[in-house]
């Protein structure tokens, strides 16, 4: 299992479009991918879970990947957050 923390830099938060990009990206990995935000646990492969968490700008998110491709999953998802999912 690997973990890392990032801070959301999307000024408008994780809205439908970035949320769908995140879920799409997460679904390409075999690992289970969880986000820990404000004491909530979110399945990163579920767009509904991501959107309904209402993650706002400047929020700290812990990413946890667990599975055979966990290293790659973690680095790719971090990269996605850094690029604000193309926003």
């Amino acid at each position, binding site marked *: 299992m690997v973990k890392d923390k990032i801070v959301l830099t999307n000024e*408008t*938060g994780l*809205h*439908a*479009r970035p*949320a*769908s990009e995140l*879920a*799409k990206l997460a679904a390409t990995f075999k690992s289970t991918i969880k986000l820990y935000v404000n004491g909530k646990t979110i*399945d990163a492969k*579920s*767009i*509904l*879970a991501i*959107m*309904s968490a*209402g993650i*706002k700008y400047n929020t700290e998110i812990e990413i946890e990947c667990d599975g055979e491709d966990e290293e790659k999953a973690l680095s790719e998802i971090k990269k996605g957050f850094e690029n604000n999912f193309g926003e």
Partner: protein
Amino acid sequence: MLKGNGVSTGVGFGNVVILKKLERKIEKKTIRDAQKEQELKRVHEALQEVINDTENQMKNITGTEADIMQAYLMIMQDPSLIAETENAIKNSNYNAEYAVEVGFNSVAQIFENMDDKYMASRSRDILDIKNRVLGKLFKEETIDLTKLNPNTIIVAEELTTSETAKLDFNNISGIVTELGGENSHTSIMARTHAIPAITKVKDATKILKNGDSIAINGTSGEIYINPTEEEKQKLIDLEKQLEEEKVELEKYKKQESVTRDGIKVKLYANIGLPADAKIALNNTAEGVGLFRSEFLYMDSDTMPSEESQFTAYKEAVQIMEGREVIIRTLDIGGDKDLKYLELEKEANPFLGYRAIRLCLDRQDIFKTQLRAILRASAFGKLAIMFPMISSIDELRAAKEVLEECKKELDNEGIEYDKNIQVGIMIEIPSAALIADKLAKECDFFSIGTNDLIQYTVAVERGNEKISKLYTKYHPAVIQLIKKAIDGAHSANIICGMCGEAAGDSTFIPLLVGLGLDEFSMNSNSILRARKTINNLDSKECSKLSEEVINMSSAEEVEKRLKEFINQK
């Protein structure tokens, strides 16, 4: 034969497509354990059909809209969307319909409770998916308004603005509604697109059936079901006559908008969306006297951004190739609602929180729009018009916000037209009565007759029971119009009119007589109006207006104006 009120001229032959307000009854049933499999399967199949429909729709979409649809699709495919629904079947033994109702509502509730306004409004997306799934479970036929079969005649109780905005106008040969008046948005849109339309047809959605072959006469308001050869021929003759008139009017494309004795006026068009500017130009509009910016807001699920508004205004002003385009700032409230604004219900919406009143209160919204207009003003001749001004204070306050926006743009080094003209609508009697004062502090007026009539005679436009009292021929209305025009001229500014009355051939001689400078109307009325004006003598019109202004009843005025135009 059915009969209603012809609101957009022309003849239409086609097949009926009924848009029904859905009245489904979701019953709560308890199912046996053995039925659970079957109910789960029904839910999955219904959802899959909705997904398939969405994928099909996506084929023709690109850009931002496609990204949004993609996200929407992912929500539909997310197993957690129907987790609650499945539980409701498995654990509570609910039938599929009721399970979908409660299951989706609980998901929508999660969004609704979020403090972020954008996210809270996503609950509508969930409810929209729910409705589509239920539609499949109830085997309702849904109609894709953006893709209709050729020669469709739309029949509905009433069309909502969002429905009208989606309509595939190329394939519509007519519109029939049970409600709605001459000035409802459906009627206005129908006239802009030159589609015959009939409103106030009692029980139309019950009498007419999907697929019925009908013919409609948008002038007389007559509807023929399975028309006989004789009836068809009559309509074809009429169509030919209208076609001939159209051809005859073509020659006025080259004429100037000038009276016989050389008084020149401006003939402008009213538009709702940037693309309408093409129709305006095609009808030789000399400018746009009213760009109803609220359509941009009604077309969207969220407040349109500065960028998207800028693009729309820029598009309109570029299409008009240097001709003036007057943008009316957001006129919402009254009968026009924006769901995402979450306006409170009011007892008297027409007398309430609307238009400039709302904008001065919600300066965030107002400034976004003003900045977008200013930025677009660098690309052509734009003018700004404030609606619903009732006092000088509102005009001053609105101009102050505009000045703030200009300063912001100056600081950001963004270009705009430093001499952009600022005008107001005269549509409230109090504004007409102090027109001379208002005229000293703005660059132009435009009289909005639809509201001016409503506020002068105290008759709500949409109220069928008292619609007879709603008339532009009321002498009080005419006196207020005169007051507005005289007020404008006392300060050497231009006075226009952008209500439906400006394009009415019966009314035009009176307006010319009163000295109106600019007539803004539906694009399809422009050539006829020019023909009318070319045949007028301004001195005769002045005499007519002096005569009419002293009359005491609307009936008298109407009779005299009709008599005058018929002698022409």
